[in-house]
């Protein structure tokens, strides 16, 4: 019982990441009709916003001490970060909380990146075949990835989480189980609720605002909305920016769990495409449901009991599910009729 609960919890945060990336991917596909292979790169860019912010904060001034000597006999170097020397204790707090604060910084940056990407490149590909869209965004992903590699190097850069959020919550106690039976790291729990709230915000935005209404109408029939005198292209550009923000935020918050490298985007991209296909191309609830479903399935298949029955299942479960779903339910779990059928 508790083993199952632990795996369920473990699947939730990973599922949250999948759901967020797949949500953005579906949003772009549903609005612009573009298959965006560079979406994983946006996730990666988001996580490097967090890295860059922390590197800025921890820029240090080095002063040679006049009196003290280091163990090697040279004058001791006193390193103080500018943030601390300028803001005092507040600076230390700032560094400690760099990852959550990066979320706020990432929003405008990712929005800008998304809009530039759409206006600069993607907009020329609306009328081209899907194969060419895949090719150009694949090329773009390589370029973005290599730029980040040139700037930050090829090694993973660990990002510590705030001191307060380290450690794990003992969930078992609340459910009347023994102590330490079911523990769950705080940060993972935060990630899960963070992803839920972002998903909720996106859905509320589409559901309850006029802007969202227009966008939904545009997803259903772009031409008709255009005929009503609405500049739907402009709205769709903003939706692309929004999708970039969602992917970027998913990346920022994921950094304490997985030290970001330049290639992290590609790894998530393949998985999130699988998620989108399982959920149904163009279906937002489908993307979210499939994201959590696959995350949980993945963590269940990693249990030793399961692995002893079918060895290696944890490595392929996601792809296997995708293959089966595509063959049995060609439209995915929640796919609508008429979307991406040829």
């Amino acid at each position, binding site marked *: 019982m508790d083993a199952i609960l632990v795996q369920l919890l473990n699947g939730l945060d990973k599922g949250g990441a999948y759901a967020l990336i797949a949500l953005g991917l579906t949003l772009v596909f549903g609005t612009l009709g573009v*298959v965006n292979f560079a979406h994983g790169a946006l996730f990666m860019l988001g996580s490097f916003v967090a890295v860059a912010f922390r590197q800025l904060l921890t820029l240090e001034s080095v002063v040679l001490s006049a009196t003290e000597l280091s163990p090697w006999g040279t004058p001791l170097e006193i390193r103080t970060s500018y943030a601390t020397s300028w803001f005092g204790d507040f600076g230390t707090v700032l560094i400690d909380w760099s990852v959550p604060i990066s979320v706020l910084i990432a929003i405008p940056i990712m929005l800008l990146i998304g809009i530039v990407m759409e206006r600069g490149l993607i907009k020329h590909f609306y009328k081209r075949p899907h194969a060419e869209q895949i090719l150009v965004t694949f090329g773009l*992903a390589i370029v973005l990835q290599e730029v980040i590699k040139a700037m930050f190097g090829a090694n993973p850069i660990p990002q510590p989480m705030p001191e307060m959020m380290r450690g794990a919550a003992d969930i078992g106690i609340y459910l009347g189980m023994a102590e330490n039976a079911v523990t769950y790291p705080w940060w993972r729990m935060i990630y899960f609720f963070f992803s839920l709230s972002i998903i909720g915000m996106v859905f509320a935005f589409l559901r309850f605002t006029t802007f969202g209404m227009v966008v939904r109408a545009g997803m259903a029939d772009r031409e008709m909305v255009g005929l009503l005198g609405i500049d739907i292209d402009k709205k769709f550009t903003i939706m692309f920016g929004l999708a970039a923000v969602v992917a970027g935020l998913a990346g920022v918050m994921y950094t304490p769990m997985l030290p970001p490298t330049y290639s992290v985007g590609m790894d998530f991209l393949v998985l999130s*495409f699988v998620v989108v296909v399982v959920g149904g191309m163009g279906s937002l609830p489908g993307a979210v449901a499939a994201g959590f479903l696959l995350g949980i399935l993945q963590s269940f298949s990693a249990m030793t009991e399961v692995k002893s029955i079918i060895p290696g299942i944890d490595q392929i479960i996601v792809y296997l599910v995708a293959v089966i779903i595509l063959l049995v339910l060609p439209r995915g779990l929640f796919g609508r009729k008429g979307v991406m059928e040829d």
Partner: protein
Amino acid sequence: MFALPKKQLIIFVIFALVVLTMPLWMSPLGAAYPGLLQKFAIYGLLALGFNILFGLTGYLSFGHAAFLGVGSYTAVWSFKLLTMDAVPAIILAAILSGLFALLIGYVSLRRSGIYFSILTLAFAQMSYNLAYSVLTPITNGETSLQLSLQDPRIIDLTFMERGQGLPTVSLLGIDMSGYSGFYFCAVVLIMGFFIAQKITISPFGLMLKGIKSNQNRMKYTGFNTRPYMLSAFVISGIYAGIAGGLLAVTDPLAGAERMQWTASGEVVLMTVLGGAGTLFGPIMGAWIVKYFENIFSAFNDTVLHNIFAFVPEGFREWVVSCAGLFVGEGWHLTLGLVFVIVVVFLPGGLMEGYRRIVSKFGAGKPNQPNSSAPDSPAPVKQPAE
């Protein structure tokens, strides 16, 4: 069976000459050493095979590296278990990768468009992950499959004694390293080119092109397109398998990273860069990618300093550090940029660029197909079915 129309025959002979004289005309370009030439031939073959699927039918597979990997593993196992001769290894690689392609193709081809791409991607990732984890007894996981002194090599050892040290791959006693290895690969490439030529001009090839331009109409005219697609998929899988086998022939080592989806992406890149749908384009794309990968990766700061020696002092550092982003480690950046530019401006790849230049300067010829003429009718949009 071996006859070709006159025009195709000329193309074939020219191609064969170009490939076989590669060591000569590549030497001024600084690429005339066997290791690189072998790669030219092998990746040319891979791109050629990929083009039979993508270029002719328009189905974009993102999992071709899986067949390359299967071919490599099979070849190395053939070296380990049977004989160090190259021919059985290649034949076995072709058969096994063909079977593998049959299996994957049968499932993947139930869907088309982007779903097909994702399905092939999923299969390739599955094979890659399995090769790294559960199948380690077969693939040797991260350390990659290698020859060892204790290999049984049944056929070889019935005829001769076990020698000192690791044996080398051979073809009827000729050592397959260096130039002889290149010529072996080159001959295979030329044979592959011939088959690809035959396919392109055959009714079968026309059928594939028909599927590309409008699959539904093909179905309405009474053709069952599935067997055609499946054969194209298997053929192109066999090409990839043979290419993987050749990789193992030139260097008897097989690792799982050959199956990663970025490797599949590389094949796509080569084919599109050269020009999908043309015969020579993909091969040229492969050559260009491999050539510049080799040349650019070797650049470092010292070389750059020598190149930019004419730039005034002080400014030079800046130029060198800027250029340094695009060469050496950053070579993939250049590749990505070039690729994006080609897809945006020349969707038909370099071959289309060539055709545009020819049609610009050869406008006097009446029979010249002029694709960029302003009065040519706009491509008919595929009707929604």
